[in-house]
């Protein structure tokens, strides 16, 4: 079975539902404390949402110095899947595993609501089970979700098709903007050129279970599992 490490920092608070979403997708997941120095042989790693270190200073700024970061870096360098959701995305940017930064929402308020999201790239470890151009409705819940990058970085992201998700306006809606944070170019999620390191602000794990939600987040996790099914044996020690 595909094994996923879900990293827990002090202040992480989405780890349990992330584990459940992995399990619903047919994988097995275990929590890894941030002071660990190894991922325990996991095939993939997810940095879940929350408020690591209270988001004090800047979200993700303190967490990136945790001992586990080295193991995550190595895993990513070896081509292993590394996924950051919300606070996890912020940590990946702070750690330099993804470019750009996530800054305070333009509206200056924490914003929690469903957002329309378009899947732009399906060759990533978390989107291969979505149709290209698919429109999803995923919850966002953050105070610092506004993606920014300088123009060179942005050009690189475009050229390498590293923009995975963007926010989309509901054309019929003249009241609520599509982009909840004012993110540059409506960017909701990006990846490394290979599509193995992915960060996104919306929370697919919150809509993975059809019992209480739309289930639209489930393919995010099945993608992670299926992308590894072929690759997994080669990666065993």
């Amino acid at each position, binding site marked *: 079975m595909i094994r996923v490490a879900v990293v827990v920092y002090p202040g992480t608070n989405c780890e349990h539902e992330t584990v459940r979403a992995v399990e619903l997708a047919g994988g097995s997941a275990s929590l890894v404390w941030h002071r660990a120095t190894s991922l325990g042989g996991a095939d993939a790693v997810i940095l879940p949402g929350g408020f690591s270190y209270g988001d*004090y*200073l800047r979200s993700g700024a*303190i967490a990136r110095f945790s001992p586990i970061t080295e193991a995550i870096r190595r895993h990513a360098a070896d081509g292993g899947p590394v996924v950051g959701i919300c606070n996890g995305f912020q940590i990946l940017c702070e750690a330099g595993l993804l470019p750009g930064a996530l800054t305070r929402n333009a509206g200056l308020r924490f914003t929690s609501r469903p957002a329309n999201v378009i899947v732009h790239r399906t060759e990533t470890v978390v989107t291969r089970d979505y149709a290209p151009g698919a429109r999803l409705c995923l919850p966002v819940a953050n105070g610092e979700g506004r993606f920014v990058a300088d123009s060179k970085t942005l050009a690189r992201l475009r050229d390498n098709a590293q923009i995975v998700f963007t926010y989309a306006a509901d054309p019929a809606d003249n009241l609520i903007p599509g982009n909840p944070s004012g993110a540059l170019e409506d960017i909701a999620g990006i990846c490394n050129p290979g599509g193995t390191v992915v960060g996104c602000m919306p929370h697919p794990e919150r809509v993975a279970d059809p019992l209480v939600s739309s289930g639209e987040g489930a393919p995010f996790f099945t993608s992670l599992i299926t992308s590894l099914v072929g690759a997994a044996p080669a990666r065993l020690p």
Partner: protein
Amino acid sequence: MKFRAHIRILPRPGLLDPQGQAIAHALTELDFSEASTVRVGKAIEVDLEAANATAATRRVRAMCATLLANPVTEDFRIEIETRS
């Protein structure tokens, strides 16, 4: 004349400063063990017109008192830089 006010707004002494605590803790873990207390607040720069530096200071103090600082929890300090 043109001035730039450099305002620092910091939590009042004695108040818990959770951000400062967390940063102090992180600095220690990062081998900056020479750092002890850390306090975190806001830095605000305001560009303004005023007749002279004294007038500028007076206006910026009023801005702090009415809008920028929370008198219950914060103290502020102002420096005025002449720009022209």
